[in-house]
């Protein structure tokens, strides 16, 4: 196993530290007014990490309360606030920006051989918008929180809740524009800034995944924005868009909400799939199996993702025929997802497989995403969803996708590109250990929830009948392991920024333009615009790094 830890062949000696994007300039101004996509990526990294731990704090509260059947640790108001803030913070302030805003921001220009994104000022503006949204969310949080669930269903949110719904809606509205502008920036960059010779079908799959994601961000997020505007008008100014007493319909809110929020799931998972494609090829040291199918399946998921929102409303009184259409389309999403999993697996066939930390995350991702995807079929199924809707089965399913999938991919990607981002190597032993802890903790936390769901435990329950306790205790125990699993990387990654071994240009022997730049790269990435002459992942025998 130690063979995977290659000694850095060409680490620069400390005496002749070259200029790179981190030491090009110093001081607060040089960071807060930076137009460098790599520095903006690090600004995002710091801020989403902060929000991740805030969201995690609320998850801890939720799991602690659910250790016992009675609602004894905190009041119902506080519990409802805790799970709502967990959802709002994790989704809008961590998962949606996570991979695109950190890894995408850092890597897309380098991967396509550009000096920066197409609109650097817009990129910085996105981060400021995100921070303003975050501050409004923090205001909502510190002035009593919000108790509607992240789904903000009317009329509870518009009329009945006494909590800070308006502030929360404004926070999500503002942050949405950060997401739109990031997506817009990526689409334009990928279209117009590719290096000579870098045709569409030579792009790394990471870039394809971000292209598909960005399209969803640009086209989906504004629908959430207008829905939140209507909600705010209804709640604060007495308009009645979703009020049946004035000819409105609360189910319309659900349609508008899910029109964005279902595709939003793909905003979270597609970039992660892009990361996994990079990891599997690099650590199998092999050309990806079925490049075109993986690339096109990202696009297919983005398109189909816009057509399945109604599967959240199988029991909301929508017509049977609408239910059938949404059901069959939801099943269809399973096919491009399955194609990806099969192609990743096939890439490993006859490869040269290294068990480096990022690959361990990739193994974890494929396993957990497979389970998450397959259990999604249960929920796309009209006959089964009647029973499973709004139970813990749903909670388990989307955590397998979003935590087992998106977060595993995010951490795998962070480890993979950490040497590039910081110029330092992390301690491999600790990293593998924490990846295993996360995998075990995750499964122990969320697998019992599938069983709870089929037994009928509804979600968002502060207190629950006694027969559900054993599984809930298992889940909470798993969550504590999971929490440790997140803290370890926090510590050693932070440590490695200062004390880690210096990273060479290409520590993994990987392909891709980002590995031809110094670690860390210079401010404008390349001294000369590179010319691309081969397809992605062209691993050949002669070449050695």
């Amino acid at each position, binding site marked *: 196993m130690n063979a995977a830890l290659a000694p850095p062949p060409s680490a620069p000696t400390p005496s002749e530290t070259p200029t790179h994007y981190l030491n090009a300039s110093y001081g607060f101004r040089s960071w807060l007014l930076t137009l460098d996509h790599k520095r903006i990526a690090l600004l995002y990294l710091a801020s989403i990490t902060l929000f991740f731990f805030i969201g995690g704090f609320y998850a801890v509260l939720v799991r602690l309360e659910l250790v016992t059947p009675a609602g004894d640790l905190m009041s119902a108001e506080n519990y409802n606030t805790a799970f709502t803030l967990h959802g709002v913070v994790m989704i809008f302030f961590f998962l949606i920006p996570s991979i695109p805003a950190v890894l995408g921001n850092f890597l897309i220009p380098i991967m396509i051989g550009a000096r*920066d994104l197409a609109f*650097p000022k817009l990129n910085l503006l996105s981060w400021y918008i995100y921070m303003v949204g975050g501050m409004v969310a923090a205001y909502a949080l510190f002035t009593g929180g919000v108790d509607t669930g992240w789904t903000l269903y009317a009329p509870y949110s518009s009329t009945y809740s006494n909590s800070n719904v308006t502030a929360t809606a404004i926070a999500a509205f503002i942050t949405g524009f950060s997401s739109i502008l990031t997506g817009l920036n990526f689409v334009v960059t990928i*279209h117009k800034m590719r290096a000579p010779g870098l045709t569409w079908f030579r792009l790394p799959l990471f870039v394809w995944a971000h292209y598909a994601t960005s399209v969803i961000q640009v*086209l989906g997020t504004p629908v959430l924005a207008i829905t939140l*505007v209507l909600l705010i008008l209804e709640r604060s100014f007495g*308009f009645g868009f979703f009020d049946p007493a*004035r*000819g409105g319909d609360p189910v319309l809110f659900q349609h*508008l909400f899910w029109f964005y929020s279902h595709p939003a799931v793909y905003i979270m998972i597609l970039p992660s799939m892009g990361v996994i494609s990079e990891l599997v090829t690099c650590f199998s040291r092999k050309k990806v199996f079925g490049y075109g199918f993986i690339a096109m399946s990202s696009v297919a998921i983005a398109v189909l993702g816009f057509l399945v929102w109604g599967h959240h409303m199988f029991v909301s009184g929508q017509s049977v025929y609408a239910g059938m259409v949404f059901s069959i389309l939801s099943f269809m999403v399973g096919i491009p997802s399955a194609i990806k999993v099969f192609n990743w697996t096939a890439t490993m066939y006859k490869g040269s497989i290294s068990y480096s930390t990022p690959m361990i995350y990739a193994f974890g991702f494929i396993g957990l995403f497979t389970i998450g995807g397959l259990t999604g079929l249960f929920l796309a199924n009209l006959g089964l969803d009647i029973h499973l809707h709004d139970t813990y089965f749903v909670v388990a399913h989307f955590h397998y996708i979003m935590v087992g999938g998106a977060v595993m991919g995010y951490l795998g990607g962070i480890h993979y590109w950490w040497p590039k981002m910081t110029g330092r190597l992390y301690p491999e032993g600790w990293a593998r250990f924490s990846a295993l802890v996360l995998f075990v903790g995750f499964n122990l936390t969320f697998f019992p929830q599938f069983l709870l769901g089929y037994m009928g435990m509804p979600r968002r329950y502060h207190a629950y009948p006694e027969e559900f306790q054993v599984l809930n205790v298992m889940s909470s125990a798993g969550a504590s392991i999971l929490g440790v699993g997140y803290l370890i990387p926090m510590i050693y990654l932070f440590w490695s920024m200062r004390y880690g071994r210096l990273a060479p240009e290409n520590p993994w022997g990987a392909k891709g333009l980002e590995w031809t730049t110094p670690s860390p790269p210079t401010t404008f990435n390349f001294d000369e615009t590179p010319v691309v002459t081969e397809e992605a992942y062209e691993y050949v025998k002669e070449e050695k790094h």
Partner: protein
Amino acid sequence: MSDHSSHGSGLAHQFDDLDQQLDATTLGMWLFLAQEIMFFGGLFAAYTIYRNWHPEAFAEASHHLDIKLGGFNTVVLIFSSLTMALGVRAAQMGKNKAVFNYLFATFMLGNVFLVVKAFEYHHKWVEGLIPGPWFRFEGSTDPAVQMFFNLYFAMTGMHALHMIIGGGLLIYFMVQARKNRYHEGYYGPVEIMGLYWHFVDIVWIFLFPLLYLLGLHNS
């Protein structure tokens, strides 16, 4: 949208040449407009559904809008699109003074629109047609008439907000024109400003018949 670096030519560092820069900013603006279409699309979807459910109530409520003022505003906006287009043309030819004048005309027409809109809103206020607890409506007892006014204020309000943002942008471009920034090789920002302005006008071209003319064929 675009990056105005210190280069005299207006070329930002991340681009190789002005053509690439113009291509990129134009694509960026079209994407932004796609985003805007989805934003207004949510409102139009709500309008379509509710009007289908309550055709009578919507038609009756529509009579309370002033077709003359709405029509006048439509003409004002069409003219402002014309002056905007002329402004873009002037920028392409590098005539900064003409750019300034046309953008100023566009700006003033936009203000006329907003002032008329403010009068209309005031009128609705006096009549008690603002949705909410104080809503009063003479005629139909169907509570769904209020839905029409919900949508009227949300749609025209969002449109007016876009007009106000457009006005702010116009001021910025007038200042740039005063500084003689534009020439045959560098006029992209004015062009994409033009795209935005035309988009906002087109939204109104849809809003006017849907909201104001709705009751006509029933009466």
